[in-house]
């Protein structure tokens, strides 16, 4: 085994501890956004798919890579957008509210939320 793998293992183990550490005190109201946000973060697999596409030769490899880039883009773009939409609603609200909220459709309400 080369020293390379040991370095990567070191990074792996330390990152694991960091992962546990940073979310150990998350309140339950944020479980959904946290799940969605971490989902977006692993979308960085897109970097890997772009790199491997550069080395791909022949129809089979290139097709598989094309699919991989497509899937990874869905993951990363969709993940961050959905999380942002969710968190937009957690923005601090003004103390005084309008007496009657118009009961508009979901999208409008989300877009118009302060």
């Amino acid at each position, binding site marked *: 085994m080369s020293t390379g*793998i040991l370095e*990567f293992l070191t*990074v792996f183990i330390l*990152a694991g501890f960091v*992962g546990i550490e*940073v*979310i150990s005190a*998350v309140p339950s*109201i*944020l*479980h*959904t*956004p946290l*799940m969605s*946000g*971490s*989902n*977006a*973060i*692993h*979308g960085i*697999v*897109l*970097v*890997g*798919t*772009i790199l491997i*596409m*550069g*080395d*791909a*030769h022949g129809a089979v*490899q*290139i097709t*598989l*890579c*094309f*699919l*991989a*880039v*497509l*899937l990874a*883009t869905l*993951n*990363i773009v969709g993940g*961050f957008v*959905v999380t*942002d939409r*969710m968190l937009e*609603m*957690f923005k601090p*609200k003004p103390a005084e*509210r309008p*007496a*009657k*909220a118009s009961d508009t459709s*979901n*999208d409008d*309400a989300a877009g118009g*939320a302060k």
Partner: protein
Amino acid sequence: MTLNTFIDLVYLLAAIGFILALKGLSSPKHARNGNLLGAAAAAVAVGFTFAYPSVRAHTLNLVLTLVAMVIGAAIAVPAARKVKMTAMPQMVAIFNGVGGGAAALISVVVFLIQAPGKPAVYRIAEVLFGVLVGCVSFSGSAIAFAKLQELMTGRPVTYPAQQVINAVVGVAIVSLAIGTLVTGSVPLLVATALLSLVLGVIFVLPIGGADVPVLISLLNSFTGLAVAASGFTLNNNLLIIAGTLVGASGILLTRIMSKAMGRSLANVLFSAFGSVVTATGGADGAGETRTVKTGTPEDIGVLLAYARKVVIIPGYGLAVAQAQHTARELADLLMERGVEVFYAIHPVAGRMPGHMNVLLAEANVPYEELKEMDEANPEMATTDVALVVGANDTVNPAAKNTPGSPIYGMPIINADEAEHIVFLKRSMRPGFAGIDNDLLFDDKTTLLFGDAKDTLAKLVAAVRDA
């Protein structure tokens, strides 16, 4: 500094961005900025990846990469923008699944590229791990999506010889994986990938109902680990760090969630909840013949209007009916009359832990009116009316009183301690967990059947007239 070193430095910065993003996501104040920071870090990392000469070496490959990214973004942005907040869990499931699929494909292609020579055993092991975990996450997420989207039954699916089939698939995967390790054969790897897809399906099928969100969290963690494995295969620290962060935090989050349901993770994954449930339901027997008390919106309107303290306990029924805005209207109206009103939120109300908070935040319900279970329960004994809107299992006293019940031990909101209990329900059908709720038959309880939004609107009108 060489170009490669420079790109590695950019990757390191992106990794720090991800750590800060995750940290931000664990507090309401910094969550949104955290997420934006994560997105920025990802964008920079992806952008600089194109600086590698190898990525730009073949024009065809480069063009295809860009085309795939454009198509992906063109699908993902509208989908993510339009999805209803109630459909959030399945959206997260599908975005997670495709990430797992991408990680598995990376591992497969790396193996194909190296195919003529036999790579070192630990190299093959990395590939195998990425393929196996990525495929399980992909097909498992697809089934979880189908369950939540109601493309198939949301209940646990059981079939004859389930354990035997699981064991056969498990043994087959292990044998194929060992075969691949020893021979470095491509067909064996492909067979392992296909069987892993099957494993994902049969792993998820028996998990149903309220357990699906916990499962999604676990699959999220799996995808993280598959991405980390791709990082090992590609010698890429950014993928290792990001994947491991998600893998580790996902497993912790999964444990926190199962704890909120009063069960162990193993119990969530392997108990086939539903089958146990039907058994206990049958043993009870008497359920069918008991009578319930139904009320008119007017009666209940008067009850609410002249109460001192009303607690609204929302559940998934409120979410599907999109009734969060109407619920708020009712609460505002009662508060104008001087009634003390707050919402009691069970940690697993909705279809995802924390889901109900997202929905009520969408309806502009201020933070202070939302009380978490531990905060709400001491107040229940002095509450005049507990208004249960589309919830069932989260107020089922069987969790406290019936040791044989499948939900025994799950913390609940003590609606049974209130002076009056009003259930707004679509029908007498049991909740997500599929068990009878004795509270429905209690003398203190009044039921109002119908879609949560309709019945709440009727109550608003009734309170106005009262």
